[in-house]
């Protein structure tokens, strides 16, 4: 059996509406993975975090 998760998450720091739209991106901490391919995980273990 397999479980596939597909989700939306922030990709960078939160800019205000005008800042974000007019000044372009402002890189910052967004989504980060905590896992490696092939790693064994248990229920409740963090796969990643915002």
């Amino acid at each position: 059996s397999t479980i596939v998760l597909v989700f939306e998450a922030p990709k960078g720091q939160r800019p205000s509406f005008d800042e974000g739209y007019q000044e372009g991106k402002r890189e910052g901490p967004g989504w980060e993975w905590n896992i490696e391919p092939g790693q064994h995980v248990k229920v409740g273990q963090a796969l990643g975090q915002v």
Partner: protein
Amino acid sequence: LRAALRSTKVEWKPIPVGLGIASLGVLQFYRIQRREQARQEEEARQTAGGEGGQDGGKPKKRQRVRPTGPWSVQIMSTLPLKALSRLWGRFNELEIPYYLRVPGFKLYSFVFGVNLSEVSEPDLHAYPNLASFFYRTLKPGVRPLDPNPHAVLSPADGKVIQFGTIEHGEVEQVKGVTYSLDSLLGSQKPKTSGTSTPSGNTTPDTNIASSPQSPQPSSERSKEGSAEVIKDDEEFAQVNGISYTLPNLFSGDLSSSTTTQTPATDQSTAASPSSESEVRADLALRASEQPWWAPSFTKTPTALYYCVVYLAPGDYHRFHSPVSWVVESRRHFAGELYSVSPYLQRTLPGLFTLNERVVLLGRWRWGFFSYTPVGATNVGSIVINFDKELRTNSLLTDTAADRAAEEAARRGEAYSGFAEATYESASPLLRGHALKRGEEMGGFQLG
């Protein structure tokens, strides 16, 4: 003759189970072959006689997808996998003699690496068969949840096969084989419930037979989201549905979106509007070109991520909610039941889009969230705790899917390939079934 009968030693030996399964498989295979041949002959006769068409001819049945791949995959695609899975399930529901249970389950645990100290029921005699042992529960507290409230938790015990970012609407499988989100989740935007009933009720789609494969019209999409763009991103008060979808607006990386290149998607024009109303009009125009699952436009620039977790036979086979989220709808794709072992994931392109699966669609704090348990030959059915109407790996659902495909063909439409139901909640704000992080959602059962 008497002497021969008396002196000949009679020895009784059981027929191997594998042989029985194989013979049933062969019988089923020949039966399907005969049926298909008869169907093709009938179709050919109708075409030759001028009786075909939407009115007089026999409608087409659901076409089984034949995968491409190496010889092992080709052989597998000819096997009656669903019949084998159901037979395997029945076999595993046979009651094991009381005194064989403990050694049998201990052997199983040794072979597949089950940690018996975590099992909630320490007395293995309590499990009457392998199916119940397979669907065992764990002791409270053996799976602590990560304390970080912003973390996405592992939904199950298993092995991480692949994870990453979705670009161009495609999920990359191991070794570069990709499949599209449209194939995995369905190409249309999910329906949302409008009425309020107690939590957990489902409203099956009465028109599951067919629906257009193309995305919704742009006018409808932009109209739905126009009133709720850029709401506060507090939990469960997310932008309604999937309108205003500019995944990479703030980053300026529009090249990775799946939008067809039109003048409106050009980066140079992205920063040109000055007033907020112009910006919104611009966004509405762009949103009309986006697929329904594309990231919603909120204050926060977002992207789509995916993760594939494989559960081995010895793993705990119940699955849990990775985050707090609201499930708005589910889609059941009848599909086939190929194995989902890492080997086959590498060798069979688009495996997850061929297999039977239940796609749960909803939203969480940051927007779109989907959760897809994919079935396999040895693990026959998928159970969702809050969806009592769902039946997977069932002859009834197969028949219903065939009937739906026939009706779609009769109407001259394409078959969407799934049955959809929406979840309703007592609270009109939720618009779905709410789940807490770590909450048990369901599981995979044998057979």
